[in-house]
């Protein structure tokens, strides 16, 4: 038998399971965050690209629609409509740009037939686009800060942990600062704006900090696994306890058998001596009487010796009986409710019943039946009768197994009948069934029913047996009702 404290692997089991769960939870969370980040990044990129394309369109429109009458009016109203446009410049044919960058950009624009970036000053937060046209070319200056369409922006610029920047040729402009959480995970997004005129990279970066892990769920999971481990531990301990209890019971039975064997050996020796003497004396007497003439005097001596030794054998038995006499035989009787005693016995034998797929029918009767009994002896009788019935049922197919316990009162006596649908007892054996050492079972000692009868008689009761039709046996215990 191993000691019950043997689940040293349980903490490791808990840790492994908890760890596995935590990793899964963290991975799921990181994947979720990454998904969200990538969605935000795509939206941000699209919004910024739309703005950039819009800028191209504005310049193209200006170039096409050039209002000749009030040349400045249209262009100068643009900053009011588009807050990111700081100013619009116009160069009429023959005029010159204020600086060389614009001139160079115009030449390029003319060649490419689209708006071209003249210069970008990220430190100042602005850049200029030039569109060459006839008769006048236009240049517009944009404010990077106002490039972002905040109402549609997917992130909260103040609190979002995502950093958003525009980059161009080593320059960087931060649209949204984000925050560095300092965790080991980080996501990156970098993509060109979808227009050639503004060759800026949209860069988004985000790091995930320890604080963003799903701590609550992780703690919850840990507790859950701990609960599970505790349950497993409890179950295992329960099972070990039960195994131990069964082992103890078995040991008890073995000890009882050992004691019985010891008793039998001692008894055999004690009885063998006088028996040997009786036999020898009787044989000597026979021989002496066979002689011609018979030696009657010596034969008489031999018979007296035989007599003495037979008495000695009887006294050995009497001594033995006094030695093993049950003290409980003299225990005081008290009122015991039969229903309770039967329920208790059925409860104790429940595992045996379920093992054999037998559902006992208990006809308890309407009112409580109290008999004069010694509780332990009564319990032993009921237990014995039920066990006998169960063992009889082992010999019939499971679907034919019936066991009933019926209680009734009859002529001042409480009657308890245990009936089974087993093979029954042969009619010629019925009268002998309560004899000591009489058994119908292969390994039976033949003491159970004899003991039951003795116990019942000690309580002023009686046990009887009848055959049951179509087959089986019914044992009835009758005990005087309690006054």
């Amino acid at each position, binding site marked *: 038998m191993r000691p019950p404290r043997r689940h040293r692997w349980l903490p490791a089991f808990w840790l492994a399971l908890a760890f596995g769960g935590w990793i899964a939870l963290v991975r799921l969370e990181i994947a979720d965050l990454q998904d969200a980040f990538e969605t935000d990044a795509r939206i941000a990129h699209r919004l910024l690209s739309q703005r950039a394309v819009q800028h191209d369109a504005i310049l193209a429109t200006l170039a096409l629609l050039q209002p000749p009458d009030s040349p400045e009016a249209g262009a100068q109203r643009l900053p009011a409509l588009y807050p990111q446009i700081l100013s619009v410049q116009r160069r009429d044919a023959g005029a010159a740009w204020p600086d060389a960058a614009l001139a160079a950009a115009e030449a390029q624009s003319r060649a490419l037939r689209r708006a071209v970036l003249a210069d970008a000053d990220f430190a100042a937060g602005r850049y200029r686009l030039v569109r060459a046209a006839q008769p006048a070319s236009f240049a517009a200056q944009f404010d990077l800060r106002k490039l972002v369409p905040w109402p549609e922006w997917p992130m909260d610029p103040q609190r979002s942990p995502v950093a958003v920047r525009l980059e161009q040729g080593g320059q960087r402009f931060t649209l949204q600062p984000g925050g560095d959480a300092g965790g080991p995970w980080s996501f990156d997004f970098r993509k060109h704006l979808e227009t050639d005129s503004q060759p800026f990279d949209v860069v988004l970066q985000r790091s995930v900090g320890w604080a963003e892990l799903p701590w609550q769920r992780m703690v919850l999971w840990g507790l859950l696994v701990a609960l599970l481990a505790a349950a497993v531990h409890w179950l295992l301990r329960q099972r070990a306890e039960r195994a131990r209890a069964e082992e103890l019971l078995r040991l008890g039975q073995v000890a009882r058998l050992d004691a019985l064997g010891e008793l039998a*050996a001692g008894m*055999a*020796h004690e009885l*063998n*001596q*006088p*028996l*040997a*003497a*009786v*036999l*020898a*004396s009787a*044989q*000597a007497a026979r*021989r*002496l009487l066979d*002689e011609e003439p018979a030696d009657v005097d*010596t034969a008489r*001596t*031999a018979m007296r*010796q*035989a007599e*003495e*030794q037979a008495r*000695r054998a009887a006294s050995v038995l009497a001594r033995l009986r006094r030695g093993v006499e049950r003290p409980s035989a003299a225990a005081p009787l008290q009122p015991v409710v039969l229903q309770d005693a039967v329920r208790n016995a059925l409860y104790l034998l429940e595992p045996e019943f379920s093992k054999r797929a037998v559902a006992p029918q208990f006809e308890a009767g309407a009112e409580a039946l109290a008999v004069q009994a010694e509780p332990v002896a009564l319990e032993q009788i009921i237990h014995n009768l039920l066990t006998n019935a169960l063992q009889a049922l082992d010999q019939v197919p499971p679907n034919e197994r019936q066991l009933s316990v019926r209680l009734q009162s009859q002529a001042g006596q409480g009657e308890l009948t245990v009936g089974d649908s087993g093979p029954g007892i042969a009619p010629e054996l019925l009268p002998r069934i309560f004899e000591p050492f009489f058994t119908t079972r292969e390994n039976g000692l033949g003491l159970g029913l004899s003991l039951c009868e003795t116990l019942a008689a000690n309580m002023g009761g009686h046990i009887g047996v009848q055959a049951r039709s179509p087959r089986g046996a019914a044992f009835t215990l009758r005990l005087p009702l309690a006054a």
Partner: protein
Amino acid sequence: MNATLSPLIHLVDDDEGVRSSLALLISTVGLRVQDWADPQRFLREFPRGDIGAIVLDVRMPGVSGLTVLDTLLREGVDQPVIMLTGHGTVDMCRRAFKAGAAEFLEKPVDDEVLLEALQQAVRQHVKSRERLAADRAARERYAQLSEREKEVAGLIVEGLTNKEAGRALALSPRTVETHRANLFAKLQAESLAQLIRRYGTVIDEDQAP
């Protein structure tokens, strides 16, 4: 040794009832019985020289019947021993036979079996005592031979003729013949066959290297 008395059976058992009943039973076939309650006293006092047998109970307080049996064997007691036991085991039985028990019987024992065993044991004892006595007589006579006669006896027992024996001992066949006649007379043997039967063992023992 007094051959006129009938054989004496020693009955060793601590149980008085068993002892007296068995003694009575044994006496019905004309055997004398002496019973002993104490095995120690039995070992000290019982007469070694008598013809008879010993009936020994296995289970006795103080000393086991098997121990008594061992002691008897060590002392070279030649009375046959019959063991009696209340509940014998194969192991106990094996030990008893190894220690030289003649029989091993279980109590309660059937009279026919016990008495037959006792009579058989006594017959065997008588026979072995006779054989012993004959053996002793043969040795005494053999001791009277001269060295030369002993040599001649050894050779003719081996089957050599007078001539061959003479050659082996550097004697004339005639001299051998004289020695031969003398030794036959001293040993009271009438034929070569008788000589070999009675003295073969003694001569072999004497001339063994």
